[in-house]
């Protein structure tokens, strides 16, 4: 039985990043510049680990945040919803350097959740008949068309939370929550960057958003929220 000791969850950032294999599918939390694990992203950029498929809402701005991974040439492909904030994405795609799979934001969130809760695929009304639907199966329910979306599972999730207790129970801060609790369920290895570590019992059990069962590694970032 490989029962983990709770204190082993906290690791230095570099050690946590070394657990990521080249070519991994990596979920990364955040929306705009809120709720992305900035220190983990910086360390991933410095590591030069390559061939990554980044699964995130957006890709920051050119050479900023997640954008740096693309500028560095560490990205093989992107699965996400909105890259208009980073024109380098369209350029890299047009030049054939990366693949891009655009998924409507609600479908993306639900596909990540599905992966985390053991559901292989689901039907959604979003995007029926549009360019997003190309190559996807449709099916009628109650006289309406729906699109089949497969779950989006990852090897690694890098997420951002506000506080963690020693077990890895997480709480979030305002709109920095976004995709983070969902991604926490959908990867084999989940690394959470947090601003603050607190003792067990310091977080109100009624207010814990991500129970520690989902979290493998916690790194302390500091500042932010």
């Amino acid at each position, binding site marked *: 039985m490989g029962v983990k000791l709770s204190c082993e969850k906290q690791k230095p950032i570099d050690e946590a990043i070394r657990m990521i294999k080249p070519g991994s599918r990596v979920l990364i939390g955040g*929306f705009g510049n809120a709720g992305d694990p900035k220190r983990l992203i910086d360390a991933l950029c410095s590591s030069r680990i390559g061939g990554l498929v980044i699964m995130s809402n957006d890709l920051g701005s050119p050479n900023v945040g997640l954008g740096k991974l693309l500028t560095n040439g560490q990205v093989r492909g992107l699965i996400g*919803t909105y890259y*208009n904030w980073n024109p380098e994405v369209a350029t890299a795609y047009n030049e054939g350097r990366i693949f891009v799979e655009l998924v*409507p934001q609600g479908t993306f969130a639900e596909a990540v*959740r599905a992966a985390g809760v053991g559901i292989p695929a689901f039907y*959604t009304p979003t*995007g029926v008949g*549009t360019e997003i639907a190309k190559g996807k199966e449709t099916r009628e329910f109650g006289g309406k068309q729906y699109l089949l979306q497969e779950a989006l599972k990852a090897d690694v999730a890098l997420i951002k939370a506000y506080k963690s207790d020693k077990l890895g129970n997480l709480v979030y801060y305002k*709109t920095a929550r976004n995709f983070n609790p969902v991604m926490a369920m959908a990867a084999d290895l989940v690394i959470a960057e947090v601003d603050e570590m607190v003792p067990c019992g310091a977080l109100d059990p009624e207010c814990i*958003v991500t129970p520690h069962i989902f979290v493998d590694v916690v790194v302390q970032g500091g500042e932010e929220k």
Partner: protein
Amino acid sequence: MKPIPEDDARRRIAWRIAQEFNKTESPVFVNLGVGIPSMVADYITNDRVFLQTENGILGAGPAAPDEAADPMLINAGRIPITETPGCSYFDSCTSFGMIRGSHVDATVLGAFEVDEEGNVANWIIPNGKQLGVGGAMDLVVGARHVFIAMTHMTRKGEAKIVKSCKLPVTGFGEVDFIVTEFAVFHFKEGRLFLQEIAPEVTIEDLRGMTSGQFEVSGSLVTMAIPESAREI
């Protein structure tokens, strides 16, 4: 006909849409897109109107003044906003559950084109420079009512209300209202009706600026516009 400066046009559209929500007596849940739609928040005066932004807050307040801006409290357009009493935060799945699950009464979105069948194109101009869909497709199928807030024509003077969308469509037959600086249109049973007309223009002027077919509602009225400079 005197042209309306673009900033005034944008404020007029946002203000007009806000009046639609301000008249409610029961709680109404509204999602605002980026651009003109986000300006609607500045004219909401009824505390029964609850603003949802898809990045995870219900009960969003207006934009935050610079000194109070919190970079971790933003709307979907990445603009720092404020809380209102009773607001709540949630993850992206719950947020789109509210939207796709028809719990959100209305969404206000911008558009490149709307056609006479209520199809809307507002997610991409295929010019090789942009790659993004965001929440637009979820919002048009999920929200109970879809309001399009857009200037009547492009800066080049081309009609945006067209016969048939040429750009990639976001959702088919989903639009309920179009509000421009010159008119309010309403889709009823798949037909487009002119419901309100701004004081500066005639129906003939509108036909000249609109390439899609529309019918004139039997109850056509003059479009309400902000009364004073203070209001806009």
